[in-house]
């Protein structure tokens, strides 16, 4: 098992290299010149522009810039933000916990709730409840995140004032202990719901279909024939089998959820990486963008390795080689 994990990690290394390469050239292929962003709207002479360009190494050939960049990444130096004038790594690490907290909660809530609802719906296929929940799920599945976020804000934060409108904590709330935990939890409710809806709908729909397929399989008949109660048939015999493909999809969806963090965090002014990414795009802050892409890609790769490992733990037919 350990060897299996090590092998999956080793396979990820070349992938990381390729991703860094693609990130780098993708950003450089994009239109716009970082120097002008750096200089802002101030009047400059062409000589001054050239000088700034030279100082930041932006006049070097691309492959030289890339080699420098790769070397820096390996020494954990993601560069210096053009906008914040701070090390990129520090900027990202500052915001990583906020994003992980929000995403982790949303991923857990939506996966668990989605799987449970899907399993329950599959027990009575084509009933009124089943049709109703399918329509609701379809709505959730097709709702734009930014729109849903705004509606949530207007209804629950502005009109009903049940939850705060933005940010991660209130200034007046206690800065430590239980009070702080509760304060953050209150701030998390709306973004977590907004974040979860799409993913929950996806997991629900997939689980429902897979459960229906699994409940029609022969070994379910065996379980019933030996007198296993229906609840145990559904949640022990069927669910574990049905959930295998769902695990894969949840893992794959990790990447989409990260991308989704840009929208959710921007709508709710959540101080996470998605917000940082949004700001960095606006400011053409190349080092921050590239740093974020690298870190985000690493997270997706790690998530996929974790998915593979979970899959191997659930399904004994996967051979650890």
């Amino acid at each position: 098992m350990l060897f299996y994990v090590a092998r999956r990690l080793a396979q990820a290394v070349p992938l990381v290299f390729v991703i860094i390469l693609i990130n780098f050239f993708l950003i450089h292929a994009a239109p716009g010149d970082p120097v002008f962003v750096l200089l802002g709207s101030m009047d400059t002479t062409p000589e001054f522009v050239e000088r700034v360009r030279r100082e930041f190494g932006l006049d070097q050939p691309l492959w030289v810039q890339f080699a420098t960049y790769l070397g820096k990444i390996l020494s954990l130096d993601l560069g210096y933000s053009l906008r914040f004038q701070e090390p990129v790594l520090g900027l990202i690490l500052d915001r990583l916990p906020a994003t992980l907290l929000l995403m982790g909660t949303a991923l857990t809530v939506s996966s668990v709730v989605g799987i449970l609802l899907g399993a329950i719906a599959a027990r009575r296929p084509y009933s009124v409840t089943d049709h109703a929940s399918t329509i609701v799920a379809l709505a959730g599945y097709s709702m734009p995140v930014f729109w849903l976020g705004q509606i949530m804000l207007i209804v629950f934060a502005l009109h009903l004032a049940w939850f705060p409108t933005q940010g991660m904590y209130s200034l007046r709330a206690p800065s430590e202990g239980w009070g702080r935990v509760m304060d953050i939890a209150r701030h998390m409710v709306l973004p977590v719901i907004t974040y979860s809806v799409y993913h929950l709908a996806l997991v629900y729909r997939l689980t429902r279909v897979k459960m229906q397929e699994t409940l029609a399989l022969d070994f379910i008949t065996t379980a019933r024939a030996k007198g296993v109660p229906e609840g145990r048939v559904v949640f022990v015999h069927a669910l574990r089998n049905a959930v295998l493909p769902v695990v894969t999809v949840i893992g794959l969806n990790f990447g989409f959820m990260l991308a989704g963090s840009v929208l959710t965090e921007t709508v709710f002014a959540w101080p996470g990486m998605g917000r940082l990414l949004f700001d960095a795009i606006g400011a053409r802050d190349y080092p921050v963008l590239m740093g974020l892409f690298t870190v985000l890609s690493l997270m997706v790769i790690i998530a996929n390795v974790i998915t593979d490992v979970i899959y191997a733990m659930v399904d004994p037919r996967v051979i650890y080689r």
Partner: protein
Amino acid sequence: MQASPLLRAEGLVTHLFTDSGRVRAVDGVSLEVRAGEAVALVGESGCGKSMTALSLMRLVRPPGRILEGVVEFEGTPLLPLSDAEMRRLRGGRLAMIFQDPMTYLNPLMRVGAQIVEAIVLHQKVSAQAARTIALEALERVRIPAAATVLDYFPHQLSGGMRQRVLIAMAISSRPSLLIADEPTTALDVTVQAQIMQLLAEVRRALGSALLLITHDFGLVAEYCDRVYVMYAGQIVEEGSVFDVFERPRHPYTRALLRSTLGPDKRVASFTTIEGQPPSLIAPPRGCRFHPRCPEAMARCASESPPRFGLGVGVAARCWLHAGDAPAGREVAHG
């Protein structure tokens, strides 16, 4: 007439309500199995014999539904039982094994855990004791290195071994009746014989009765005491194996026996039954076999023949016997 049978079904009707129509899979089936006896239910694929077995276990799932009839097991009517009461019987006194051992075991559960689960449901024993009973059951079905196999997953076993595991699971609580639905169809011929031998052996050791669902008259001759022949959702003939083989009363049974290739037969005498088995959505009027029957008479096309009792435990649903029945029409069981 002996004491009340172990299992008795009377006028059992199970239909499947599919999109293309109502499938009359089981249409008034009556049969009985006495304690310790081996009974065969024989018929072509799609004649409703598996659905009969599932109905006896009350394992019919939508779109299928048991519509009427009586099923009595050890004197208890099963159809009025609550789901919980029915579950106590299933896998306990009344067990079933199935056709394809490759798909009837949960791929994610260890073999031992699957057997232990059945034992814990029916016997008041600790998990440790259940494991010992599971081990005994595996040894009884002659699985080599049974203690190791307990920790195997199904994919690590061959088809024959998996069928043994399923049998071990079914007999772990010493059932008085084991229903076996084509237990050897999916296996190699050599393994088939082993499994059938094993079933006979286990049955002797535990004193269980066997209801064997099969299309193979060879198995019936070798391993069963009595036989029911099923055609298009109905029992068309019943009798002792000896009787039915020596003097088949129903033209369908005769045709079925002629189309079986035995070691004592030459290929030249092998025949097939003309035509196709009828649709169970719209079965033929009158006798359901009449369109394929070489001996069909005029009334066969219009009137459905009743069950004519032709002696102790012998009956046929065929107009040819309208004059032979000692007590007229519809003779009771016995």
